[in-house]
Structure formats: structure tokens, C-alpha cells
């Protein structure tokens, strides 16, 4: 599933922050230069990510609608939890350790 913000959208948010809020505060020439290079590199990452096709989210939509309709057979929670854990491995890998 293509989670929001997507990886591309996150890269864009970082670019905006660095260019808009950090770059103007840098007085050191070398730091400014390296920040501009870093922003270029980040732009490459963002454009490359834009080419990645979004993942299929039809299954998640269907599951969400089914639960909303009150159709929650045994095993639903285990299935949902496993999927959330998978997303956490990307979004916040150390978080799962807090449940060990």
C-alpha cells in the first residue's frame, strides 16, 4: 500500500525544510556549499522515488470497509497487527522492541 506521506512526499518535505529554514541560517561558506550539494542529492532521491509505482492498496481498502461493516471474523486482529508491524519496520523499527 502506498502510505502517506509517500517516500517521495517525505523527501520533498525535507527539501523544503532544509532549503527554507536551515540554509538561510548557515553563515559558514563550506557548510552552505555542502548543504546545496545535499539538496541536489535529495532532489535526485525524490525524483527517483517518483518513478516507483504506488503499491496496491485495494486489499487494505477492502479490509477496512469490511471491518467498518462489522464483519470481523476470528483472526482479523492477527492479520491487521502483522500488517502494522510490517509498516513499522519502515516507519519506526525500534518501536516494536518496546513490546518485547
Amino acid at each position, binding site marked *: 500500500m502506498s502510505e502517506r*506521506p509517500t517516500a517521495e512526499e517525505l523527501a520533498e518535505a525535507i527539501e523544503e525544510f532544509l532549503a527554507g529554514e536551515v540554509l538561510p541560517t548557515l553563515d559558514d561558506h563550506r557548510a552552505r556549499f555542502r548543504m546545496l550539494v545535499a539538496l541536489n542529492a535529495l532532489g535526485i532521491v525524490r525524483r527517483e522515488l517518483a518513478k516507483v509505482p504506488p503499491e496496491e492498496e485495494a486489499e487494505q*481498502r477492502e479490509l477496512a470497509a469490511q471491518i*467498518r461493516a462489522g464483519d470481523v471474523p476470528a483472526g482479523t486482529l492477527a492479520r491487521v497487527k502483522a500488517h*502494522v508491524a510490517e509498516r513499522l519496520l519502515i516507519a519506526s523499527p525500534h518501536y516494536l522492541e518496546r513490546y518485547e
Partner: protein
Amino acid sequence: MIADMRETLEAVLGPISEPVLLPGGASKEAWAVDASGERLLVRRAGGGVIHRHTLTLRHEFEVLQAAHEAGVKVPRPVLYIADLDGREAFVMERLEGETIGRRIVRGPVPERLPVQMAEELAKIHALPREQLPFLEEATIDRLADELDEVAEPHPAIELGLWWLRENRPPPREPVVVHGDFRIGNLVIDDGGLVGVLDWEFAHLDDPARDLSFSLVRAWRFGADDLRLGGIGDAEGYLERYNELTGFGIRPEELDYWEVAGNVGWAIGCLTQAQRHLTGQDRSVELAILGRLGAEVEYEICHLLERQGVT
């Protein structure tokens, strides 16, 4: 801009120190100023769009006044200013103490803090609602509507909503609630609770819901083993609250509303990310909440598992 602001403030407060913008606060600005030897804080509307279900600064000021009159530990409200350099604002006392959750849970935690939290909540829940006629009632049905507005599939949140519908305890008479009562919105010093801040989410609701909000894992700031905001157990807190209010709230109700608090915050993460994605308020901090909401979804699954859901 600071010059205009200062002129308006000096017209009402007399000579003041140079206003200093304090960090934090995505939707509201906080300026520290001193006037005639008094430490003051100017809370001013931010530039972004005011989101739904939050009070205007005028109404927030009125709630603060009512709380202060009733003896709730809050910063003393000083005055409301309809136009402070183009935005509404109010002035209140600037309390001394710690508000940063991570530092508070690191300790040493004042021993009486859980009981003090219960005592302040009991006072808040006794505020006369007739005095605050603008407060609206919020039901948990609103949560599903808020999720629908985000228009993303989140089965874990749906499961939480489903469980909340299936297991709703008998409703209690709505009272005035703070709406965001948790570590992070409380000023703490060595002696314990100094003041309750951030009243913008005040509304009318089941008191058990407000009582349970500080149990939500995200507001334990990493001290996960201490269910009450990373600073204590829920037992003494609940006992003291019941003793003062006579509401007789049961531990199962805390469990129920703890799930509700997590569901609310999981949706809150998504709506905060929407503020960034829609361009209303571009910010990395808001953006990343869209992904960190998965932590809260995992906690919802964990809590439901403990309730016997499979």
C-alpha cells in the same frame, strides 16, 4: 512586526520587556514577556488555518477564567486581546516548571503527582457548564467521520472503532472536560503539579474519557511501564478521583477509554499529516506523523489483544 505587537501590549500592560518567541506550538504562538516584574505569557493565534473542534482564543480564555475562579491550578488569566498585530491573543501568567514530557518521566517524579492530577481533574469536571455555553458535546462517533475525511484505509483504526462500538459502557452525564489532559500539557516542579495548560480542546464529554487520556502510551514518553503518563500507576489516581467526585468510575471504563484515546490519537496523527499534505501548513514534523501513526495503530492492536480479540 514585533514592534507593532509590543506597542499594542504596552498600551494595555504598561512597559514590557522585549517579547521572546518560545519554541514549540504548531498552531499557536507563545511569547514570553515581563511587565511590572511579573512573568507573563502571550498566547497568540498562529498563521495557519484554525482546525475544527478547537476553541477560539476568546473562548479558551473564558475557560481559563472559569477554571481559575474554581481554584483549578492554571496560569492566572490576565486579559484577552482581539487584535494583536492582526491575530487574536490572550495574556496569562507564565508559570515556572517543566512541561517537556521526556524530561518529566526521566524523574525524579514528585510522589504526589498522580494524586494531584486526579485532584485537578475532579475540579475541572465540576466546572459549571452553564457558565461556558459555547462548549460543544463530543461523542466518539465523531472519530469515524474524522477518519473518513482522511480517506486512507487503516484497518487497525477500524478495528479500534469497531471494538469501541461493540463494548460501549453505559454513558455518563457529560461534564466540562479539558480534552488534552496529559503529561506534556502540565507544568511540573519538585513539589508536583503547578498548572494545567492548553485548554483549546475543552468540551463536554464523559468524564471517564478525560480521566483516561493520560494513560495513552504515546503520552508516557518512553516510560511504557508506568501506565499513567510514564509517571505512575493508574490505581491511586483513579481511587483519588472517585473519592473526590463520587462518580465511581470502574477500571474497565479506564480500559475502554484508553482504547478510545489511542484511536483518537491515531486519527489525530493522520489529520496532522493532512495539514502538511494539503499545503495548509507545510512542516516535516506534521508530515512524519502520518507514518508514526503506525505506532499508535500497533498499540490499538495490542490493547485489543488483551481484551481477548483475535
